[in-house]
């Protein structure tokens, strides 16, 4: 028994269990990709005639929402598989999805607000889409609070899987709110803008060159890489927790 407690902690160090090669490759590609899409958005794409330089923030603003979409989507996938198989690994993916998605949607919200200042002449307006995006953030903040409030690990995992699935509705609402409440001033870049949208611009070829790579990066590599790192860390944190309990009970 003593032998076990002594040897286990060393197993938990990252050096003892280095990231798999695929993850290391993904990390490098993600960092390079992020630098590349930033360069595309800041240097290659032309300056918008009417909005000026600030329009470039759009190459992060919109992709970050879809990054959050992927991350929160993984939370749903993780929740469903956890409930079906009771595999803790998928619960960790769900948790990592919430943390990463929350950071991404925060980026989405803040960049939108900074864009709105010069274009709409206000930092914030109670527009349906802005409101629903803010509520989406709060929902996932509630996820983390709720998670912290449940002590029993089994209950925590099951409850949070359920909540993660329900919470995804707010993501869908943010995505489709323009169809539900048409009085938004938020522009739609893909497809037809609502009549009273303010601050739209056309998706010309220059815009697409900068937008598509950024969108693909945020949609796939960015959330997946960070979530993977987070999942690995969470696995070790959980093991440490077990060890602590074990040490206390001895």
């Amino acid at each position, binding site marked *: 028994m003593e032998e076990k407690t002594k040897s286990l902690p060393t197993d938990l160090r990252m050096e003892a269990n280095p990231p798999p090669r695929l993850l290391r490759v993904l990390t490098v590609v993600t960092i390079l990709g992020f630098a590349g899409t930033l360069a595309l958005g800041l240097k290659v794409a032309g300056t918008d005639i009417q909005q000026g330089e600030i329009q470039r923030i759009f190459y992060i603003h919109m992709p970050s929402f879809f990054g959050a979409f992927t991350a929160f989507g993984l939370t749903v996938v993780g929740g469903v598989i956890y*409930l079906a198989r009771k595999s803790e690994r998928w619960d960790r993916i769900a948790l990592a999805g919430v943390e990463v998605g929350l950071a991404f949607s925060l980026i989405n919200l803040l960049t939108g607000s900074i864009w709105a200042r010069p274009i709409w002449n206000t930092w914030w307006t109670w527009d349906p889409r802005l409101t*629903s995006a803010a*509520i*989406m953030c*709060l*929902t996932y903040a*509630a996820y983390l*609070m*709720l998670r912290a*409030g*449940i*002590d029993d690990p*089994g*209950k925590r995992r*099951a*409850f949070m*899987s*359920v*909540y993660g*699935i*329900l*919470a995804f*509705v*707010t993501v869908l*609402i943010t995505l489709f709110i323009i169809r*539900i*409440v048409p009085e938004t001033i938020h522009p739609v870049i893909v497809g037809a803008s609502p009549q009273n949208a303010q601050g739209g611009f056309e998706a010309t070829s220059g815009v697409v060159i900068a937008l598509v790579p950024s969108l693909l990066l945020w949609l796939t590599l960015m959330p997946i890489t960070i979530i993977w790192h987070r999942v690995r860390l969470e696995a070790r944190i959980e093991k440490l927790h077990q060890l602590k309990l074990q040490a206390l009970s001895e």
Partner: protein
Amino acid sequence: MKTPFINSVAAIIGKDLRAEMRARELVSVMALFALLSILVFSFALELDREAREEAVSGVLWVTLIFASLLGFNRSMAQERDQGNLDALLLAPISRAAIFVGKLLGNFIFTLIVALAILPLMTALYGLALLDGWIIVTTTLGIFGFATIGTLLATMTVQTQAREALLPIAMLPIALPFLLTAVRATKGVLSGAPAAEWQGPLGMLAAITVIYLVLCLLLYEYVLEE
């Protein structure tokens, strides 16, 4: 051998109704809260005739959702404190039956409160809230609240912070109900053509069905042990 679904649902509703008839602590607390909320709103917003027409559907729904939060919390806490939940889990009935039973109980109590404040608001604000379509919207919206409220209250009541967590967990998730119900109520109230408010009302019904199915599927996972 399991008790048939309908019988167990009826038994749970019957139990809740009898308990409420004796103690009268659920409906009376919710109704008193709703009344206070309406009065506070009318002072806080200084509602004049014109502002009332704009704001009254918002006031109605905010009042209803907070009143139902109060009710759901109370109803689940009673189950837990008196050890009913454990007893129900041991009983040979399906989880879905427990969910439907609690859901219908919550729905009935909240609906009673809602149907009581509609004529009250009609009298206080001088607006025709006792319209058939508003009652339909209210019933649907309350059913929606009860669906997710029952599920989430079952969860939060088992946590450390208990009552404090239900509003945080439920308000964002209840948003689709709130959004569509407020729009439908507003449309009916302003006498707009049916085409304008049938959309939100249909959407409210659709969302209610989606959530009901989701909650039925997920309920067994929040009632374990």
